């Protein structure tokens, strides 16, 4: 298998894109629904906690340089336990890919093409993503390098256009901090999308230099961006309306009216969503394919990528509708994410530490 090389800038952009994905569009309404006017603070808290946990991931990665997450699992856990851990992480990538695929299906069906079967969106999208994953991570990174700056600039221009609708009164009354709801929201936010970025540990060995710094920097930038977007949504749409809209950004752009010539800019936001989701699914799909190839020591990714379309599009149909999706997220997202983001890395670190300690003792006895 070829060994691609990613620059630190490309990895920084990949981290941001991986985090933006669909979370950027779904999360604000969930946050505003429970934490009201102060909901823009929660991404900052979740981001700060995740950056601390990310240091743990990076410490694990630094103990095995030039090894991906799957190779670390195999090295630390041995043939059987390591294989089980690696399979768990491959399943996690598959799960994320199918969830995000479903997100794009839901969005397209609800806003763009209501009469088209949802499976059609999934399969069409996955065909392109399969092609991207066969081409490799350097192709995905270069595409992202071109698309992400355009997305961010467009988003800021759209924000500027909505300034006439901004009202500071929408941040009043500043209600007392509801600790229970905020802790629940913050923990769910940590699981989706922050813990998902742990899958980037599969491609971290391909980064030429400053991988750790750029990973943390990407997380920090995304945290600020999400907080800003939530702040902007509250100021423009208000708490009540943004908590009732599934896609508050889309609603804002639907109502925008600068002049008779410039109005209804929702297609722009649809393009942004399609772009960010495309990059996110490409990364997780590639990580899944690469993980399988590394686990079974295969050289060609093509014949793993193709049948995965069938599997991912099938798993994406698991949720009946968006209500079931949101309900599952509220109930189990943190517990599910914590297994892959906290528990398994801690086990890997502990076993790795014990192994190194026993090896050192053996060396001392031999001397």
């Amino acid at each position: 298998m070829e060994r691609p090389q990613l620059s630190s800038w490309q990895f920084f952009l990949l981290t941001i894109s991986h985090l933006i994905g669909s979370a950027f569009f779904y999360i604000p309404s969930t946050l505003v629904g429970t934490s009201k006017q102060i909901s823009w603070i929660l991404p900052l808290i979740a981001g700060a906690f995740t950056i601390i946990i990310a240091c743990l991931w990076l410490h694990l990665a630094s103990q095995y340089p030039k090894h991906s997450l799957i190779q670390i699992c195999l090295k630390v856990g041995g043939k059987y336990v390591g294989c089980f851990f690696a399979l768990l992480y491959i399943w996690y990538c598959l799960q994320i890919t199918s969830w995000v695929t479903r997100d794009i299906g839901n969005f397209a069906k609800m806003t763009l093409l209501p009469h088209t079967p949802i499976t059609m969106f999934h399969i069409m999208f996955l065909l392109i993503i399969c092609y991207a994953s066969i081409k490799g991570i350097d192709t995905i990174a270069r595409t992202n390098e071109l698309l992400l700056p355009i997305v961010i600039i467009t988003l800021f221009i759209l924000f500027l256009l909505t300034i006439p609708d901004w009202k500071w009164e929408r941040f009043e009354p500043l209600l007392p901090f509801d600790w229970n709801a905020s802790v629940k929201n913050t923990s769910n936010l940590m699981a989706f999308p922050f813990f998902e970025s742990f899958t980037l540990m599969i491609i971290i060995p391909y980064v030429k230099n400053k991988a750790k710094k750029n990973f943390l920097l990407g997380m920090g930038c995304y945290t600020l961006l999400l907080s800003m977007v939530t702040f902007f949504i509250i100021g423009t749409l208000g708490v009540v309306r943004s908590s009732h809209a599934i896609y508050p950004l889309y609603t804002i752009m639907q109502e925008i009216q600068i002049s008779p010539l410039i109005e209804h800019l929702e297609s722009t936001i649809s393009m942004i969503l399609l772009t960010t989701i495309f990059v996110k699914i490409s990364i997780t799909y590639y990580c899944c394919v690469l993980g399988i190839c590394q686990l079974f020591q295969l050289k060609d990714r093509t014949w793993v990528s193709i049948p995965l379309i069938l599997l991912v599009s099938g798993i994406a149909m698991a949720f009946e509708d968006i209500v079931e999706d949101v309900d599952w997220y509220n109930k189990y997202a943190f517990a599910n994410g914590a297994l892959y983001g906290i528990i398994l890395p801690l086990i890997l670190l502990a076993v790795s530490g014990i192994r190194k300690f026993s090896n050192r003792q053996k060396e001392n006895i031999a001397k």
Partner: protein
Amino acid sequence: MITFLLFFLISFTICLIILFKNKKPRKEIILFITIAMLGFADWISIITRHNFNPNKWIGIIIDQISFW
């Protein structure tokens, strides 16, 4: 159902022919068949309305663990 079965059989056979013609390693062929069969089983469960929902199973496991 019949359309899906026909589509799957035709595409699966074409892929297998290409794999054998290119003399791909046995491991790669087995993995291809395994993933394709998993996807096929998942889609059959959707078509027969006995939808396999891994998220539901994960939820049950988490509930059981938190109960204990």
